[in-house]
């Protein structure tokens, strides 16, 4: 099957007829530099007098930290200074706790009193050479008293002793319970019910560039400068200022190239704080810390694992009446992000289906594993997995076609805006159309015939579906800032609070500005983040699928304000009526007479010179900063919606503004696989994605997101898993044990669109940064079960990744049972 990479599959309604630069598959402007090797990743930066940091990490999952003796390290020639947890505790505050607000965090950037996971930072050394720093940490003497590791999340929830944090008196740090609709009644009136336990492993999108930071402290200005590959600039500014007890105007955060982030780089508190503390002890010399891969796998953060018990009530015609979901989430050894994987599920609990009766009972527990961090979609992959597996189980029980059962339960296309049971409001969508198009592309009916035919010849192919909603941007609460300036020569530079991390911000922002100001987008400079110059808010950053929301909105707002000013000045100079002015090719025309124009450079010069020459009421200068979002976004939630995602948000907005997404993109995935019954080997024969991300600013970038996302999801479904043994040792700390998809595993992916423009976006777009990574977990599990269905019996995939061993076991068990009967 060929991979349809050409852009001939872009439907006309994905662009607005009036767009000139938006909607075009422009090659990215940032690429030339990256292709030449002229990069500005943290480790590339040319900063003189660098010193190097190495971090000593705990070999134990759980142990008392009795003594840390730095003296040996300090004797190593070339070592400048060293610190341990006691120093950190004396001069810094605890790491911000994002989610569970009721407990008092005890975690510092270096361990104190206890170590709580393998790889936890215990001490740090600075030396004149990176190898010397590595040598020196071996000379640090640490006395540990090992404790029993808390690893089994299910046991941890109810344990009455052996706590990850003794003062909490429990490992179950979070509990959400909700009853929506009438669940008892749904179960009473059901024809049938079924119950199943499924789970999602701990995984990470593992950005190829690990965490990296350079810190420099100027003794005279008392200013701390940080070059860091952090995604969430705003959180870093707010959180680090708290931790270090420094005012934000003395912290300068510079974010240049980021080698992928996927959420894992949103809040690198420990490397940031450790490097900052060390930089204050080196007489003004900058220090650099570059995490290595093993450290990244052990300590940078990963998803929360989840065990899910689902019980579903349904009618014999396939209509799902309601379900109960009981979850246990394993968030590792930190409060930093604990609880967020759980609470995010409330935002998408019914998926793309009109299911109103739901009971949700969700525990968050701590264990002696690596702390959870956001990772592409956070709780969304799990939620999609739960709902898309549940509906499959029902179809299997009823022997109903999986496409048909979805059609019978979909939220109808005419029911938007749709208020979900949990109080979120979906903006727009057409789920039946998504599925229809996806089935057309795979030629579903023919494929089913072929499947039956092949089975006769001992070949087993399976077809798996996933049809779901994702969410993008946490509505009006997440606000962003951008400043756009037309300088005195008419050149344009933009500066946003959210950094580019391979996400195409530079090109996309340029396309939007070019559209408003009538210039060639390539002529625009989009500068990197620098907190001294870039506008930023507590939410600033590249995360939560939010570029499509506030980032785009503020870019439009600032560009429109500038346009109005340019038009006013231009009309004045041309002695024309402002409504007759048009902007194109860097010129300002009077409609209908192309000879009557001024260049943008001329307008700019006028605006920066004698104010008397400017029209009434127009201030000199052409600079606009916009901070905010669109008022359209506030339609995204009901006022009585509950279950906040992350209490840190409340620090800024106050309680009572629950998370719901600004836009709700949606997808239909169809996986076609072949299972080798002898070996358990799985081959993906075809993978089709039809998605709805509303209108599209740059189809090339959108397709790149679709493909990259889908391969993340395929990796999670088939390969990736962090494995801990019972002592809490991480068995998968390199890419030899933690398997990623390579060019040999990825299937060709056909992607296509359905477009329902979002009424909450000024230009009808929806988010595209996360969605396709959610579907493959369920589509592939569903496909494998479909492939082995002829063996009969209730043989199900209960855990991911779906390895050949698991398939093999399943096939053997099914065959054994069949031989017995």
């Amino acid at each position, binding site marked *: 099957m060929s*991979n349809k*990479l050409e852009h001939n599959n872009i439907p006309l309604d994905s662009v607005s007829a009036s767009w000139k630069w938006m909607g075009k598959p422009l*090659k*990215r402007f*940032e*690429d*030339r530099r*990256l*292709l*030449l*090797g*002229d*990069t500005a*990743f943290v*480790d*590339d930066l040319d900063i003189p007098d660098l010193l190097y940091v190495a971090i000593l990490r705990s070999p134990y999952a759980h142990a008392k930290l009795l003594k840390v003796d730095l003296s040996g390290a300090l004797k190593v020639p070339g070592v400048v200074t060293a610190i341990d947890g006691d120093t950190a505790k004396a001069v810094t505050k605890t790491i911000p706790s994002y989610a569970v607000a009721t407990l008092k965090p005890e975690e510092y950037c270096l361990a104190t009193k206890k170590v709580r996971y393998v790889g936890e930072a215990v001490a740090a050394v600075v030396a004149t050479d*990176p*190898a010397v720093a590595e040598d020196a940490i071996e000379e640090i003497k640490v006395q540990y008293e090992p404790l029993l590791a808390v690893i089994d999340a299910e046991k941890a929830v109810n344990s009455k002793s052996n706590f990850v944090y003794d003062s909490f008196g429990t490992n179950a740090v979070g509990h959400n319970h909700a009853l929506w609709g009438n669940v008892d009644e749904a179960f009473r009136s059901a024809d049938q019910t079924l119950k199943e336990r499924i789970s999602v492993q701990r995984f990470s*999108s*593992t*950005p*190829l*560039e*690990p965490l990296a930071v350079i810190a420099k402290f100027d003794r005279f200005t008392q200013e701390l400068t940080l070059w860091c590959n952090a995604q969430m600039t705003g959180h870093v500014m707010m959180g680090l200022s708290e931790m270090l007890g420094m005012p934000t105007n003395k912290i300068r955060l510079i974010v240049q*190239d*980021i*080698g*992928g982030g*996927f959420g894992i780089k949103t809040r690198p508190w420990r490397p940031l704080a450790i490097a900052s503390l060390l930089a204050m002890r080196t007489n003004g010399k900058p220090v650099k810390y*570059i995490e*290595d*891969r*093993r450290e990244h796998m052990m300590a940078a953060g990963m998803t929360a694992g989840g065990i899910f018990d689902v019980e579903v009530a349904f009618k014999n015609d396939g209509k799902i009446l309601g379900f109960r979901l009981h979850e246990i989430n394993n968030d590792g050894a930190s409060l930093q992000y604990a609880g967020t994987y759980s609470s995010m599920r409330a935002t998408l609990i019914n998926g793309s289906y009109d299911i109103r009766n739901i009971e949700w009972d969700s525990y968050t527990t701590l264990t002696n594993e690596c702390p959870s961090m956001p990772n592409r979609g956070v709780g969304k992959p799990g939620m999609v997995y739960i709902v898309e597996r549940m509906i499959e189980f029902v179809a299997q029980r009823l022997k109903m076609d999986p496409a048909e059962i979805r059609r019978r339960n979909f939220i109808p296309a005419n029911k938007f805006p749709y208020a979900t049971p949990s109080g979120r409001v979906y903006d727009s969508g057409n789920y039946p159309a998504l599925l229809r198009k996806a089935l057309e592309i795979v030629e579903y009916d023919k494929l089913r015939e072929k499947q039956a035919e092949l089975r006769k010849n001992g070949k087993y192919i399976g077809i798996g579906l996933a049809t779901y909603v994702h969410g993008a941007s946490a509505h009006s609460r997440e606000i962003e800032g951008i400043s756009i300036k037309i300088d005195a020569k008419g050149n344009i530079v933009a500066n946003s609070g959210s950094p580019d*991390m*391979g*996400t*195409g911000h530079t090109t996309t922002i340029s396309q939007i500005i070019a559209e408003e100001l009538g210039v060639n987008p390539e002529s625009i400079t989009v500068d990197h983040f620098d907190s001294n110059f870039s506008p930023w808010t507590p939410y600033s950053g590249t995360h939560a699928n939010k570029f499509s929301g506030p980032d785009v909105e503020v870019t439009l707002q600032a560009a429109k304000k500038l346009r109005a000013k340019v038009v006013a000045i231009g009309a004045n100079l041309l002695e024309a009526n402002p409504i007759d002015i048009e902007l194109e090719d860097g010129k300002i025309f009077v409609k209908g007479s192309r000879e009557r124009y001024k260049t943008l450079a001329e307008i700019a010069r006028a605006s920066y010179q004698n104010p008397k020459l400017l029209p009434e009421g127009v201030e000199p200068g052409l600079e606009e900063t916009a901070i905010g979002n669109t008022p359209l976004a506030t339609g995204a939630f009901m006022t009585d919606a509950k279950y906040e995602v992350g209490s840190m948000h409340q620090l800024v907005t106050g309680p009572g503004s629950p998370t719901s997404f600004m836009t709700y993109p949606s997808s239909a995935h169809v996986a076609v696989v072949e299972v080798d019954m002898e070996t358990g080997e799985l081959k993906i024969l075809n993978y089709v994605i039809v998605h709805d991300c509303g209108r599209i600013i740059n189809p*090339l*970038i959108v*397709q*790149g997101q679709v*493909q*990259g*996302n*889908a*391969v*993340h999801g395929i990796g999670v479904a088939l390969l990736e898993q962090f494995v801990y043994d019972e002592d809490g040792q991480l068995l998968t700390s*390199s*890419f*030899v044990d933690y398997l*990623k*998809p*390579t*060019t*040999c595993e*990825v299937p*060709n*992916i056909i992607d296509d669109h359905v477009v329902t423009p979002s009424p909450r976006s000024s230009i009808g777009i929806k988010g595209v940064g996360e969605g396709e990574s959610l579907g493959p977990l369920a589509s592939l599990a569903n496909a494998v079960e479909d492939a082995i269905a002829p063996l009969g019996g209730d043989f199900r995939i209960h855990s991911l990744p779906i390895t050949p061993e698991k398939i093999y076991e399943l096939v053997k068990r099914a065959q054994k049972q069949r031989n017995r009967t």
Partner: protein
Amino acid sequence: MTKHLVHLKVNGELKEGYAEPRTLLVYFLRRELGLRSPHVGCDTTSCGACTVLMDGLPVKSCTVFAVQADGSEITTTEGLSKNGKLHPLQEAFWESHALQCGYCTPGFLMASLAILNRNASPTEEEIRRNLSGNLCMCTGYLNIIKAVKLASEKMAKVRN
């Protein structure tokens, strides 16, 4: 630790610098010779971000000691373009949107160049097999595979 003088011909120019016996080639190229394009994604031979050509063959430069490379000829991404004009392979990556964050890109360019040097028109199968030692976390690889095919067409045109 004692340091050894290491001579290399890097992208056509003679270079020298000092390296400890344990210094990996990738760190020597980056820290001693100031090249930026070989990146470190794992330093354990798994990701290919550090791939360079050593005497024409692709090596993961985190798996070679600098002293082992003494006297050899090294090609990196910096050596691909001529006077600011992109190599057809770079152009093909650009047109195919074969990079997102760009951290893996220099490694993929070098590994791809090695494929094309060996076989001017490789099959998809060959491209996939020979790039499987390079990890990209962003793109999902499909556009990279497409870019190598496109590059082979572009280079054929240049030759004719």
